Every structure is written in C-alpha cells, then in structure tokens.
C-alpha cells in the first residue's frame, strides 16, 4: 500500500467513524503534508490506517450523529408476483431524512423489483409507497444514451428541472468529481468504461437534487478508490438530509447504513444488525 492508498483508506476510516467532515479533511491534509515533507512509509510513521483513525477519534471525538428527520419514504405491504412466482411478499421499509437503508438478499429475491416499485416504474400486486419530496433513481445498468456526451446527459436531466445548460453542466461535473471522475471530455457514453458509465449513471440520479435517492447496485465496475468515494458520497448526502436506499449484496458495508431490509425468503436473518426490516415474514 503506497502513501496515496494509505491516505485514502485513512480518510474512509475517519468517515466511517463519523469524524466531522472539516476535521477529517484537516487531519488528512496534515498527515499528507507530514508524509510529503518527512518521507517514510505511512505504516511505519502512523501505523495501520484503522488504528491511527481510532487514535484520532479518541483525541478529537466524533461529530454528533445526524438525527433522523421526517419520513421520506414509506413502502408498506409490497407484494409482487410474476405469474405464479411470488418475488416480494409484504415487504415494508421506512426511511427518514438523513438515513441510508440497504436492501439485501440473495440473487433473484426481488431487490431490484422492490426498488423499481418504490421508483414507480413497476406496479405491485399489493401495497403502496409514499414519497415525500423529489425522487432520484439510479438503475443497475443502462439508463444512459450511447451517442450522447456526459455533458449532454447533464443538460438533458437539468432541463427536466428547468435548469439552464451552463449550470446543469457545472453541477454534473461537480457531482462527477465527487466520484473522482472529470466528466467534461468529448467521449460518447458508449465509449466509457463500465465503471465510468456507472459514475455517469449515478451522477445523473443525484443531479436533480432529490430528497429520496434510490440506488440499484450502482457501483458495478467501480475500482477500489471510486468505491470508497461512493460510500463517502452517500455519507455526505445522508448528512445533507437525503433519504437513501441502496440495493447491495456487499454485506461488509452494512455498518455504514442505518437500516437494512432483508428480502431473503427465509426466516433466519440472525447475522443482521439491529434495524433490520424483514421483507418475507
């Protein structure tokens, strides 16, 4: 692990421990300056990133956890059948402003269907969804136009909200930068790599400044750095009062979410943290 990787991991550890964003930035900048000027292996100078982050937390404390706000998404009794196969049975999820909810479960258990129902793209056989505020949705794949540039996607999405071209372009590029991507190039969407295309997809979903953000495994093809940036971005959006629902099968990230909806059609879910909401009672 070189100094950059160490710093990136250290930053993620600070975010995970809920160190206030400004304080975390300051600490990371100090560590980077120290390494640049003094040289040396960060593992020797500071030790493992998680240990150093723990020491920092002990020293400066953490930011108070954001207090969950009003309910932004309430899905109740969602049932969906395809023919004789029931994919969702009485699934219920409540997400408040300032919360991240994870939807987990085995392949084919209806995670994406649940999200599409919440987005209003698919009708359930039973149940209802209440959304407070504006809705943003990022599909697992697709959702972009092959022969348009990233900037043109931003203009297209921006026009839906009545945003002029210049501001839409700037907002899109700024959101893309949060994911470590400079989006202003002249490359068509079809020529972007899978991961970069997903960054475009994700950027489009946040561009309309939604109050509720639905993300269907949006990190497909992300490299490690982008993946860390993605979760940092989610933490920032949560701290800004957004309600976020993210479909995931990566269980090691569940400590970064506030509530979990398990759609696995078995009663056993003992591994899940408190806050689990069952989809298959």
């Amino acid at each position, binding site marked *: 692990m070189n100094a950059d990787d160490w710093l990136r991991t250290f930053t993620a550890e600070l975010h995970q421990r809920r160190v206030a964003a400004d304080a975390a930035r300051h600490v990371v900048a100090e560590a980077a300056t120290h390494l640049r000027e003094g040289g040396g292996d960060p593992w020797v100078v500071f030790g493992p990133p998680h240990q150093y982050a723990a020491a920092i937390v002990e020293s400066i404390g953490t930011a108070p956890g954001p207090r969950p706000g009003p309910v932004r998404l309430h899905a109740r009794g969602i049932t969906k059948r395809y023919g004789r196969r029931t994919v969702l049975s009485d699934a219920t999820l409540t997400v408040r402003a300032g919360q991240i909810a994870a939807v987990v479960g085995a392949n084919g258990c209806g995670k994406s269907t649940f999200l599409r129902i919440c987005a209003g793209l698919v009708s359930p056989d039973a149940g209802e*969804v209440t*959304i407070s505020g504006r809705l943003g949705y990022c599909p697992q794949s697709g959702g972009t136009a092959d022969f348009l540039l990233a900037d043109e996607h931003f203009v297209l999405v921006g026009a839906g909200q*009545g945003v002029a071209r210049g501001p839409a372009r700037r907002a899109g590029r700024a959101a893309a930068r949060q994911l470590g991507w400079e989006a202003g190039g002249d490359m068509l969407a079809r020529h972007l790599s899978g991961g970069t295309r997903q960054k475009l997809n994700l950027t489009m979903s946040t561009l309309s400044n939604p109050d509720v953000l639905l993300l269907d495994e949006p990190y497909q093809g992300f490299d490690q750095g982008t993946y860390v940036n993605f979760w940092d971005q989610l933490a920032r959006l949560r701290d800004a009062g957004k309600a976020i629902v993210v479909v995931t099968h990566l269980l090691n990230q569940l400590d970064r979410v506030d509530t979990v909806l398990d759609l696995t059609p078995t009663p056993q879910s003992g591994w899940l943290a408190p806050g689990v909401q069952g989809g298959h009672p």
Partner: protein
Amino acid sequence: MNRLLTVAEMTLRELLRRRGVLLLLLLMPLTFYLIRRDAYLGQSVRSLLLGVGWAVSTAALFATTAARELEPRLRLAGYRPHHLYLGRMLGLWTVGLVISVPFFLLPLVDGAELRYAGLAAAMLCSVGVAAPFGMLIGALLPRELEGTLLLLTVVTVQMLIDPAGSGAKLTPFWSSREIATWAVDHTDEGYLSRGALHGLAVTTLLVLGVAAVASVRLRRRRHLRHLPVG
C-alpha cells in the same frame, strides 16, 4: 417548451453521430429509386418515396428502442410523457426532412418532368407518417428485431398491394403514393386532395397512438403517493 426542444435536440445529436446509420438512411431511398430507373419514371419516384418512408421509420424505431431505459428516469427528472414523445418525434421529423432534400433534388437533376410541389407534398407525407409509425412500432415491440420485421412486412405489403384496391388505403404510406401519382402522371386534383387528407389522418392517428402508449408506459402508478417536503 424548453424540455421538448431539449429532447428534440438530443435526438438529433444522437442520430447525426450514427454515421453508418445515416449513410444507410441515404442509401436506401437511392437504391429504391435507381432499381426502378430503367422502367417507368412514376414507379421510380414512388419507390423513392417508399424508401424515404422506410428509412425514417427504421430510424424512429431504433431511436425509440434506444430511449426505452432512459425515458423512465427522465420522467422522474421532471419530464412529462408528451415532452418525451413529441420531442423525439420533432427530432425525427427534422432528420427526415433533412435527408429528403437530396431526394427531392434527385428527379430534378435526372431531368424528370414532374409537379415538384406535388413531390414536396408527397415527401412531407412520407416523413410525417414515418416518424410516428416507427415510434409506435418501437413503443409496442420492445425488441428491435421484432420491430424491424414488422416494418419490413408493412413496407412489403405497401409495395405489392394494388393501389386502386380498398385495402391499399389501410397502408400507412398510401398518401405519398397517391400524391406522387398526381405529381408524376399529371392526374386530376382528386389524387392530391385524397392523398393529403389520408396523410393528415394517418399522421394524426399515429401521433395519438404514440401518445396513448407513452402515456400508459410512463404513467404515474397508482401505488405511489407523492407528498411535498414538509
């Protein structure tokens, strides 16, 4: 209005970047024209019009299929269904009119003695019908192969059916054929008025069809209740 024009502009940009498709769009009517050039000129011009109609329908079909995944998220981003389908249609009509220009000039260069106002009206009908026709097929049949085969069937029927028979009036491009007859054979005004009326009626019906399908597909679902931010 801005939303509608933005969708039209993006449709245009997408199509203009598909150089291979554009080339084929131009090649198709040209081939139709040249293949009948040795025979009677009227047949050649009518084939040209059918080629233009087919080319624009195919472009509309592919543009509609390509936008299938994007449209629901644009709907969430603040677009209404009519912004999406009318914007796309506007873009396709523009492309259709642009590619019609060289084919309007082709018989002129070829020295054909035609009523050129009639040829222009026939081209207009052909493009006017083709864009919503291709879009409707694209909206009803989600897979490109099925859509292309259906288009092929309709155009083949259009080519082979007896234009004087009553069944011919049910084919979408009958209007341009009728007006072309007026333009090429210098027949009476009845051909022009019948053709224009047919073109107008078919275009209106197809636009309404596209509107109906898009409004159903992109409707606000009943299970979803939106509340303002409290």
